[in-house]
């Protein structure tokens, strides 16, 4: 176990001289001055910690969002016929810790080729993004990869009611206002 011993010791002569010459203050000044000068000549590369300026200018420069990011929810459609993948099993609603999902379904006869099956069919799907804590448990519970949290992260709306996403919004996504200069 290493003990930190730098405190509590009497100052040595070197430290006293350093203190007299204000070196403890000056070395800090040098560091900040170095950054200041580097900021003036180095090319800006937002988000690179080795560059002098780290800023990404967000609305102008879109951030790189990772593949696994959990953002706005989406209901996936079957790519072949465009119908929803949701089987209205309600597992997502059960898995949700904050009860932000409501799945509405009816039982009705569905023609599958020649046969006619009685099947649960999705009618409404309400996802309250104001309550959602983006934990991904619903998506993990989904047996058909229908409900998914996507990379879209701009969820701000002008009115509280806008946080309640219905089935249409979940399937098509909402229109974002993209701010440009």
């Amino acid at each position, binding site marked *: 176990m290493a003990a930190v011993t730098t405190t509590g010791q009497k100052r040595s002569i070197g430290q006293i001289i350093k203190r007299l010459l204000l070196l403890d203050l000056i070395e800090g000044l040098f560091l900040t001055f170095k950054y200041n000068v580097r900021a003036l000549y180095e090319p800006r590369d937002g988000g690179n910690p080795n560059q002098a300026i780290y800023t990404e200018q967000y609305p102008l420069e879109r951030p790189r969002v990772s*593949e*696994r990011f959990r953002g706005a929810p989406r209901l996936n459609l079957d790519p072949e016929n465009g119908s929803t993948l949701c089987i209205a099993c309600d597992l997502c609603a059960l898995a949700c810790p904050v009860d932000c999902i409501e799945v509405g379904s009816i039982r009705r006869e569905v023609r599958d080729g020649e046969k006619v099956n009685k099947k649960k069919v999705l009618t409404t799907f309400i996802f309250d993004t104001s309550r959602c804590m983006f934990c991904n448990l619903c998506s*993990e519970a989904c*047996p058909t*990869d229908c409900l998914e949290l996507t990379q879209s992260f701009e969820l701000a709306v002008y009115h509280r009611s806008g946080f309640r996403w219905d089935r249409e919004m979940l399937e098509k996504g909402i229109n974002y206002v993209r701010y440009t200069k």
Partner: protein
Amino acid sequence: MADDNKELPADKPIAENESDKKEEAKPDATLAERTEAKPEGETAKPAPPKAAPTGHKPAPPAKKGPVVTVEITDDPLINKIKEKFGDAVTEAVATFGQQIVRVKKNSYLDLCRFLQTDEDALFDLCADLTAIHWPERKEEEFDVVVQLYSTQKNRRLRIKVALADGDACPSLTALWSGTDWMEREAYDMFGIKFEGHKDLRRILLPEDWPGHPLRKEYPVEYRDNEWTDKHLQYREIDYDTSLIDVKYAERR
């Protein structure tokens, strides 16, 4: 990649142990009684009686089985406690390798003092103090649970004391001043009074909040109560009218 991983937990559940379903919680039984009732012999892994696990390696046969709670017999400290306090120690068990001593309320403070000062124990750090509500257990509705740790011996010990609703529990603040806020929280959440606590008032909830939330009868989704009526109601701000500019008054 995402899809590969999703397969993993989707495996069908391991066959549930049937004994589990039979074993519903019996909150009125003490832990030892509950576990005694279990069918023994099924892949039962005896938990190590020593508290301090050195180098946590996961339990070798990691099969799901009923927990074996064993009576501690070979631990010198526990034996010493049993000897000293006799009948006051109603239970001394180890579960998951963690030692639990249940003590009667009268000897609770003495035991803690003993544990703090005795040179075999030296539990100098009171890691946690909390309570559990067992509404079905008559006359012993509350358990106060204290987690002790010894920085010198590197071992843990859990002390439990049962209380009836409305009973006062002796306060540990004289021994460990760190229990101050923990006891206040227990009071706040369960309504357990701590005798000898100098400053026993609510800590997380407002002073005049009705009820104690962590009691089992307290509802989870409970919005309006007297407190919200009193404090969160919209009402007009009482201005000192003499300070309002005359012009404004005239304009009205």
